[in-house]
């Protein structure tokens, strides 16, 4: 399984690497001196282009922090970060954001309440210097299953699932090859969660995207991802393919514990 993905053929013109994201000994900390908290300690993993990778762990384990360090939202990090073969520094160029975009957890908080869907999408498109914005906005809305009638609505006129679709459309606007998904469905009902997960599956197939997803829900990660890294206290304790997770084959006691509790409540 592992070799099959690693042997993924890369399109012509791409940099000489098969990996979309390479993380090598990443450490992230907050505060300094006595107040210093090490949120991520020496994390390393690679994502082959076109793959889908999940990070699980309890809150505070540092899984979202890895995504924030990748996008440049956190500056205090050390170690090697490479995206599509390019080393990342402290500052990220506009070009970088054409390759990598992020979808946040709470669609109620991540959309500007006084910007219409049209404003949100056109602003992103014009920042990235696209032309024929009009057509692109409609295309994006159709891609995420909303349709052009939603174009001039404001966030308060949309349901949670529709907002998350707008957030996904905004992330797709610069035509990235990598999407970082930070708990994209945990604020949604199970029925809406199914719709969004299906949408993400379809988009990944259509656009050949690479996903790095964070979730505390093992079933959701298991549904969307091929490889899963389990984090505890800022350390990646285990990386395993999804098949092994489904068969509850894991070597680390913490993963076992997590798997047991995600199978549901058992009365003593």
């Amino acid at each position, binding site marked *: 399984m592992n070799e099959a993905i690693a042997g993924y053929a890369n399109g012509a013109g791409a940099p000489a690497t098969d990996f979309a994201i390479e993380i090598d000994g990443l450490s992230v900390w907050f505060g300094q001196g006595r107040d210093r908290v090490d949120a991520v300690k020496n994390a390393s993993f690679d994502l082959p282009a076109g793959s889908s990778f999940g990070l699980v762990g309890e809150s505070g384990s540092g899984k979202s922090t890895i995504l924030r360090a990748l996008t440049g939202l956190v500056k205090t990090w050390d170690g090697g970060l490479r995206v599509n073969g390019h080393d990342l520094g402290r500052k990220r160029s506009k070009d970088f954001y054409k390759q990598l975009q992020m979808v946040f957890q709470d669609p109620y908080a991540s959309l500007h309440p006084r910007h219409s869907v049209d404003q949100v999408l056109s602003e992103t498109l014009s920042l990235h210097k696209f032309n024929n914005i009009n057509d692109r906005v409609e295309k994006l809305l159709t891609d995420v299953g909303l349709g052009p009638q939603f174009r001039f609505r404001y966030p308060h006129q949309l349901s949670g699932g529709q907002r998350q679709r707008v957030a996904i459309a905004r992330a797709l606007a610069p035509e990235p090859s990598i999407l970082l998904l930070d708990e994209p469905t945990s604020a949604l009902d199970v029925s809406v969660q*199914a719709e969004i997960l299906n949408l993400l599956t379809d988009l990944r197939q259509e656009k050949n995207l690479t996903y790095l997803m964070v979730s505390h*829900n093992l079933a959701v990660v*298991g*549904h969307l991802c091929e490889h899963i890294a389990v984090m505890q206290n800022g350390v990646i304790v285990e990386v395993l393919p999804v098949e092994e997770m489904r068969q509850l084959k894991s070597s680390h006691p913490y993963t076992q514990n*997590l798997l047991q*509790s995600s199978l549901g409540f058992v*009365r003593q």
Partner: protein
Amino acid sequence: MSLLEVDNLHVQFPTRSGVFDAVRGVSFSLGQERLGIVGESGSGKSLTGRAVLRLIRPPGKVTADRITLEGKDLLTLSERQMRKVRGQQISMVMQDPKFSLNPVMRVGEQIVEAYTQHTRASRREAKAKAIDMLEAVSIRDSERVYRAYPHEMSGGMGQRIMIAMMLIPNPKILIADEPTSALDVSVQTQVLSIMDRLVQERGMGLVFISHDLNLVSAFCDRVLIMYGGRVVETCRADQLYNATHPYTRGLLNSLPRLDSPVERLQVLQREDAWMDSDQTSAGTGSA
């Protein structure tokens, strides 16, 4: 005999575009059992819990043919009498401990307050009782937690404190509104087993409101499934996976499962008929 009887409960809110019916004719009875109420957001499950305690504020309106607690009519009680019911006879655990504990009061004082509101115990007695209660919810370092402030506590710890506070007046019924959805999975099971143990030891009735079908089917004895303010199906919790109503089936099928992977998840197709059709029952209700 059942502890709580609710008959034809309605909750309405006037809006600019007419009256909105949030709960439409919900009836159930609760004995010494764990009753689960599941549904999506907006299905009226939380409002049902709040309406029983008469916590719906005007302009919201609660009407029912009957809400009785051990035969006593709750609808005709005065606000003063109602205050004796809340906490002492029926108490409620809310979703997020961060928003339901008083941030500027030490944990111990809050628990003591809950106790002395309903009994004439001395402070010393109340403190001893509060420490006992903290130990009952598996808090090891109870003396330290007693003196701590809520922000020093983790989410799971906070929720255990809430449970301690709600159970200390020894109520007959506990309404738990999504008590574990703000918690991590690993902590979730701990908090649930504590709640389960206490409810069983004290012979209480539990109303467990949740959107998590797996959890409810494992944790409860009986389940009501709500949609659009109505109960569309009632069934025994262990029979939930054999539920017959298309809405319940749709919800169950839309869940990703670790043990049975699928390429695409089923998406719930809503039907208008679910809004008014009569409820069906799967399995035999034990009520």
